[in-house]
């Protein structure tokens, strides 16, 4: 089962997206919310992202969703630090944060493979509102 990490500049956004995603999820999917700086400001904390990856990593893979600029950069930087074997199975999704989190949680719960989940959440349909 694929696990999920949600990285936002704001702790409440990460936790809120996790709350919404967990409402829909089935099975043992684990979701970690990482938000804000260590001192509680708006921003990102690469060390917390690294800890989350180490905590949640499984061979089935981990999908990371991030909101803006420094969250994306921090995730990419942490991915560079991972061992090759782990790195291959941890993916920063090119997907909208909230919608991506919910659909990833649903599909991960159904036992879909990481490639299938990414295909869903990275599709243009994800951002259609009309």
């Amino acid at each position, binding site marked *: 089962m694929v696990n999920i990490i949600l990285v936002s500049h704001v702790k409440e956004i990460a936790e809120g997206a996790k709350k919404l995603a967990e409402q829909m999820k089935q099975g043992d999917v684990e979701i970690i919310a990482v938000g804000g*700086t*260590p*001192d509680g*400001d*708006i*921003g*990102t*904390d*690469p*060390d917390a992202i690294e800890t989350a990856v180490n905590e949640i990593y499984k061979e089935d893979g981990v999908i990371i969703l991030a909101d*803006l*600029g*420094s969250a994306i*950069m*921090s995730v*990419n*930087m942490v991915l560079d630090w991972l061992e090759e074997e782990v790195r291959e199975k941890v993916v920063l999704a090119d997907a909208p944060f909230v919608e991506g989190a919910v659909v990833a949680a649903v599909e991960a719960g159904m036992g879909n493979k990481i490639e299938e989940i990414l295909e869903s959440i990275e599709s243009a349909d994800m951002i259609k509102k009309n």
Partner: protein
Amino acid sequence: MTEKSKEIINKVADVIIENKKYLTELDSAIGDGDHGINMSKGFNKVKEKLEAKDYESNKELIKTVAMTLISTVGGASGPLYGTAFLNISKIIPDADFDLDSLIEIGESAVAGIQKRGKAEQGEKTMLDTIIPAVNSLKESKENGDNIEEALKQCKAKAEEGMKATIDMQATKGRASYLGKRSIGHQDPGATSSYLIIKTVVDELY
């Protein structure tokens, strides 16, 4: 040389901390208004770290600067400057810097920032200060300038690059959301990069 490098980094930290308000004001105009706060948070921690330990080599010293900025800055400048310093830490010599090593330091900083930020020159970012500064060092090498002249030119080109961001429209980072409204303001990242380059140059010669 490591003692001298430590002095230079401490001076850079002081200058960034002194300019906390200025950098934050620039960032408030076109960004999220935290550049000065984030940078001074990072460099305050750098000062603490340097105070607490003696460093055997420039590599070890600069790596500490990199990892401290990455862990404490919180904004995009953390991964950007962090990766720049991390790249520098891999190649920085312990001997006195000659023009070749300064060029190599500059190029590895640019490579690190481009790896993280995926920006080019002209997008209203720190690269608009740093790339002209590095190019100036290369030109000086071609012209056979002595190091003093090369550094003087480098500082001037960095300042010119920083000021050129005023007329640019941001296409990277938070300021890009403003579109044309970003024109007319000096980029805070380009400004902190200038403050760093200026301080290093002033301390070296």
